[in-house]
């Protein structure tokens, strides 16, 4: 058993130069076969492995990661955690996740620094305020916290917002979810990895899947850069690279990968308390524990896997943030990076069976995957363990696009670049 993390064990370490800590996860050689293979060592893949072992007792599991765990979107998002979606299938799914977030550090014995400091959508006109009230009412009717704020209440939480009436986008009010907030993204990947490894899951890095082993219409394993590995069930869980990996199995998904840019400023003393977003503008701002303002906006709306953004797209997001929070003007952007987002054709994820036996899908997270990590892991584990979707991910089937039961939160239809 690994040495549990605790303040006491840290003090003990102060005396022995922290020599007693074991590696957080092993570095095993891949075995010939497993009950379940999960392709993708990001947040969702590692969470799925953890819940397979913990909830379903299935421990003969391998997580195959092509480079280093936590290197994909879980390592490069803007750390927002919330469940304030308008449509019930989405807000019920993310709310289930939010409840898991509230206890995740203790569950994993790894402090993921989940900080429920509130996430608010600003409204800039009557139309926005009606939409925010509608979203809030839909949430409250399904037992999820949501509260409308007046400009005065907003000023107490975020005094640096431009609340003047002659602002280009005046702030008429906001909808806040107090139980939402942020978390330390790397810690989520590492926490799930350490806990899954402790339950016997093999986490295999530097192991890229290059093809599938097929027997008729059944997937029986994968070809990798470290040899062939067989499996009873194989779960794709590679977010931005879903199109590519599913393509190796001959599947064409309703997904196009786009670049999502984010940035962080140099660290400053506390100036932003909660997470600030907007109903009609496209930016989101929060402040990390090291004092950097973390922000992002719309994705670059054309397909790319390059993890390299177009600068004026980022500049447009910054213009919106500086307009709404002028105090940002003289801070400096320290670093900007990009992730590859798997944009689904209605904006909702795809978690469930694929048309090929033994192969399962978890993809289509657009730019909202981080907040879904626990819920995605839990429901995907259920699907992989039982062969049937959990009630929470049943609506997010691949078939919905052909039946027409799409779940379109942004209500703009199939093309991610029209969003």
């Amino acid at each position, binding site marked *: 058993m690994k040495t549990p993390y605790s303040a006491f064990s840290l003090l003990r370490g102060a005396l022995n130069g922290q020599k007693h800590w074991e590696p957080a996860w092993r570095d095993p050689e891949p075995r010939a076969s497993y009950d379940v293979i999960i392709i993708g060592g990001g947040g969702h893949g590692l969470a799925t492995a953890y819940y397979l072992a913990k909830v379903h007792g299935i421990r003969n599991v391998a997580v195959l990661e092509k480079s280093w765990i936590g290197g994909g979107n879980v390592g490069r998002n803007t750390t927002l955690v919330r469940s304030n979606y308008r449509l019930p299938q989405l807000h019920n799914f993310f709310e289930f996740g939010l409840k898991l977030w509230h206890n995740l550090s203790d569950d994993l014995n790894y402090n993921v620094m989940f900080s429920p400091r509130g996430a608010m959508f600003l409204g800039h006109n009557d139309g926005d305020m009606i939409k925010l009230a509608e979203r809030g009412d839909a949430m409250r009717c399904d037992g999820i916290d949501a509260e409308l704020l007046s400009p005065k209440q907003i000023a107490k939480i975020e005094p640096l917002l431009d609340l003047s009436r002659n602002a280009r986008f005046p702030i008429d009010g906001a909808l806040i979810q107090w139980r939402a907030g942020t978390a330390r993204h790397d810690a989520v990947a590492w926490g799930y990895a350490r806990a899954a490894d402790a339950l016997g899951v093999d986490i295999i890095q530097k192991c890229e899947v290059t093809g599938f082993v097929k027997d008729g219409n059944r997937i029986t394993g994968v070809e990798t850069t470290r040899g062939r590995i067989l499996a009873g069930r194989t779960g794709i869980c590679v977010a931005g690279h879903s199109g*590519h990996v599913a*393509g190796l199995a001959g599947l*064409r998904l309703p997904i196009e990968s786009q670049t999502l840019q984010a940035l962080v400023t140099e660290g400053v003393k506390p100036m932003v308390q909660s997470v600030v977003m907007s109903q009609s503008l496209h930016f989101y701002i929060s402040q990390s524990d090291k004092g950097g303002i973390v922000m992002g906006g719309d994705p670059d709306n054309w*397909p*790319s896997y390059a993890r390299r953004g177009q*600068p004026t797209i980022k500049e447009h997001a910054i213009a919106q943030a500086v307009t709404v929070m002028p105090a940002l003007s003289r801070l400096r952007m320290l670093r900007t990076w990009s992730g590859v987002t798997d944009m689904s054709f209605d904006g909702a994820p795809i978690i469930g069976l694929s048309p090929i036996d033994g192969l399962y899908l978890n993809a289509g997270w657009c730019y909202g995957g981080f907040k879904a990590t626990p819920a995605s892991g839990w429901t995907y584990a259920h699907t992989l363990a039982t062969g049937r979707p959990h009630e929470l991910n049943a609506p997010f089937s691949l078939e919905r696009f052909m039946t027409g039961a799409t779940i379109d939160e942004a209500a703009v239809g*199939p*093309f991610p*670049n029209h969003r």
Partner: protein
Amino acid sequence: MYQITCPHCGPRAQTEFTYERTTDSVVDPAGDASTAMQALYTRANPMGLDDEIWRHTYGCRAWMVLTRHRVTHEIHAVKAIGPEALP
């Protein structure tokens, strides 16, 4: 920020252009429904070359097909589409 060589205007900055869709996702309004839905809702989304419809929206407003690499962002070919135009 790509430089896209518009068939009519020559090399221009990407902010003048808009991406529409891939050529294999064009839906023929008069075609049969299942072919249309396959075109609308399935993508190859390759980590390589693909043919994409773009428009020089803020330039000559014309449409074109780019053969573009989704990792290197190299644009291998540009083909004008649209009504017959005087040179």
